[in-house]
């Protein structure tokens, strides 16, 4: 099997799938051309992420990393969520095959994009650490380039 049991568990039983109707921050990264798109919805109360949902178009590891990343930030503060790295997501899944690591990068970027959107909606400046490599583009796909 290509994937760890944990990846398969999160792929077959993804946590936090869906949308949040009145989200405080929404971020989408990826590109249909590359075959991976992740969209994250955040509900934020004060500085705590009280709810998070995702929708993903992509392979098994794209779905599993989205699911794991949402679990890792739910109930956490914004500051904590901002420090989430792709390596931590991959590690929590007991690893990913080398050519699938870009999926974990997308998961990290999707969360950062949603947090950046939260700041923008509030009319505040987006912290530098939330700026993505290709923010100017509609869909970010830094992992593919």
């Amino acid at each position, binding site marked *: 099997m290509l994937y760890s049991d944990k990846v398969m568990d999160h792929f*077959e039983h993804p946590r936090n*799938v869906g949308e949040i109707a009145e989200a405080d921050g929404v971020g989408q990264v990826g590109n249909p*051309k590359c*075959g991976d*798109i992740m*969209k994250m919805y955040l509900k934020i109360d004060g500085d705590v992420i009280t709810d998070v949902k995702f*929708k993903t*178009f992509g392979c*098994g590891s*794209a779905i599993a990393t989205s699911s794991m990343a949402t679990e890792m930030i739910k109930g956490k503060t914004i500051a904590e969520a901002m420090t989430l790295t792709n390596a931590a997501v991959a590690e929590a899944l007991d690893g990913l095959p080398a050519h699938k690591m870009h999926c974990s990068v997308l998961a990290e970027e999707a969360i950062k994009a949603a947090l950046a959107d939260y700041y923008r909606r509030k009319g505040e400046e987006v912290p530098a650490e939330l700026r993505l490599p290709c923010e100017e583009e509609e869909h970010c796909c830094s992992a593919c380039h």
Partner: protein
Amino acid sequence: MSHPMIYADHAATTAVTDTALNAMLPHFTAAYGNPSSLYRFAQEGKTALEQARAQLASCLNARPEEIYFTSGGTEADNWALRGVAELMALKGKSTGHIITTAIEHHAVLHTAQYLEKKGYEVTYLPVDRDGLVDPAAVEQAIRPDTILISVMAANNEIGTIQPIQEIGAIARANKILFHTDAVQAVGHIPVDVEEWQVDLLSLSGHKFGGPKGIGALYMKKPLRLPPLIQGGGQEKGRRSGTENVPGAVGMAAALQEAAEGMEAENVRLAALRDKLIDGLSVLPYARLTGHPTRRLPGTASFVFEGVEGEALLLHLDAKGICASSGSACSSASLDPSHVLLSIGLPHAIAHGSLRLSLGAKNPEEEVDYILEQVPAVVSYLREMSPVWDKEAGKPTWEL
């Protein structure tokens, strides 16, 4: 897993048939002699090998001395292309032009690219949206320095069967060597090297109920390509290495069995294939890939918009269905299959491909099960897809 296993990936490989296995078994134990040895004990292997060659040849309407055993289809493809290039080099033409297609298997494509690096020029002919090569385009691509035309007989991903006979006639009229990679065709559709007018044809044993690790290259007499593999001079000095006697025997037995049952089996398979096509290509934003009728009897291939192929395969696997996909994520590459892009599919859609290839052991109930499961998995994945508009029932993208 509580589901039965349904194997719908026969284009990837097949189980060795009982007939083939029983034919092979004595050559592993009782009759293990090296066919090159002189003593009588080894003669049984030698005789079996030559019988296998004759059996294989008769299934292709070839002569036994035109069949060379190889380690498989990939070696046969490599040998055909590199062998022709080397043959021409031996005649003093160290460069030249090769015509092939954009949808070949990598065994041909990567060998063609290797020859490009060596100074050869290669034309990769496009295909139409059904995956067909236009024979007229082959003719137009011919140049005075063209040394080889290589067009696959049937495509492994989309099942389209090429007009090999027409292309063969063009090649022969222009006195250009013609190779066909018939790995997906042999054992599945009638193959006649004389009718097809091919000079070289590659085949692989495990695609039609023979074992893995054995294949063959047909070489029309008097063509004699220089060897790709040097050594002890087996296969009349053309392909060295101790002969894979059990493999050759098993492959030949499997091919004979397939050829004998082909007519009846293909009627059954085509009906099941068409049931899959009728059931799955009508899903919203789904379509058949490959030619609607000129296709391998067991192969049904599709794309489903808004769904990624690897995720589809993994869910089908959880339901007990073995299938394959040309999506980027089901391989180590970031690009979807070159075949799906060549038939004009945008990247985003090509990522959502599914190939179901049926074989002898698939009864109709299994097809019915597949027809229940695939739409359910497609809907489930679309529901969690950010590029699928659930209310509108269509993808959010404009391609």
